[in-house]
């Protein structure tokens, strides 16, 4: 049965997920609604089954490695970094990425400033560059608390920042989508772009972590 199932695929740096509920033989009301809406739209000639399949595949192909490519390029090339701040969409295109309809804003972590992204009103996220957001980013607890007590939330993620580092929260309420440019880890002198990209994790580009260090 292909309607309901999929083969979960692993992303790098992803936490192992809990066992999925056993709903293989049960069709929930909402799952039935999805099938119904899709079939009606196909019958009306508004979308085709092929388009739906291709869009699913397109989104499947997006993951944090895309954003990491921009981060690694910025770490190596100060001029590219500046272009990323001036026009995030153009900078994404420059490395062969499709940024989607929204305007990408890149915010830079420095030794004295740490940025973290949230959408308190819903779950806006730079999906075109990072893939679909993790559940926790969309959760009540994250959306409620990271804007009010960011340092406590970051500590829950294992990131304890001293007061000498200013924390900036960005609430994506409108048409911008944010990407954090994490600090380049120490001990990476002479590294290639591909090697550096492997250190730029999804969580560091959301701002709940720093980039991985060379030791892993």
């Amino acid at each position, binding site marked *: 049965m292909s309607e309901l199932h999929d083969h979960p695929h692993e992303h790098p740096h992803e936490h192992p997920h809990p066992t999925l509920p056993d709903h293989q033989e049960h069709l929930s009301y909402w799952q039935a609604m999805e099938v119904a809406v899709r079939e009606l739209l196909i019958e009306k000639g508004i979308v085709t089954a092929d388009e739906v399949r291709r869009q699913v595949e397109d989104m499947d192909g997006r993951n944090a490695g895309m954003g990491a490519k921009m981060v690694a390029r910025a770490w190596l090339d100060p001029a590219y970094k500046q272009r990323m701040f001036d026009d995030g969409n153009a900078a994404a295109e420059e490395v062969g990425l499709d940024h989607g309809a929204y305007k990408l804003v890149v915010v830079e972590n420095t030794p004295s400033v740490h940025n973290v992204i949230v959408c308190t009103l819903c779950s806006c996220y730079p999906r075109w560059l990072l893939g679909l957001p993790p559940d926790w980013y969309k959760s009540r607890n994250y959306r409620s608390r990271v804007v009010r007590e960011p340092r406590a939330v970051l500590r829950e993620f294992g990131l304890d920042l001293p007061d000498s580092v200013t924390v900036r*929260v960005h*609430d994506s309420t*409108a048409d911008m989508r944010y990407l954090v440019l994490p600090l380049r880890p120490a001990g990476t002198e002479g590294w290639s772009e591909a090697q550096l990209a492997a250190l730029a994790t999804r969580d560091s580009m959301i701002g709940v972590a720093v980039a991985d260090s060379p030791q892993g």
Partner: protein
Amino acid sequence: MSLPAVPARFKTGDRVQVRRAFPPGHVRTPWYIRGLAGTIQRLCGTYPNPEELAYARSGAPAQPLYRVRFLQREVWPDYSGSPLDTVDIEIYQHWLDPAQEADHERAA
């Protein structure tokens, strides 16, 4: 963009105050920031009004959209991080008044 647009009235560095209003409906100005003062970081562009788009209307007139920066210690009474910590929010122009005028009204 062909949509009629409101001209931008604020620039980077201006002090602004978020209007203290609580309409029902689809509003993209978070409740936690209503009535508070911040500083314009930049003009992001001019966009159709989401409050109107939410009802399948055109979104006219398009509103200038700003990144506005607030000091966390001024937003949350119990904020316990660095006094320099900030929250940046995108706010549409029709939700913003110049802070000077609001200060003046309070003093009057």
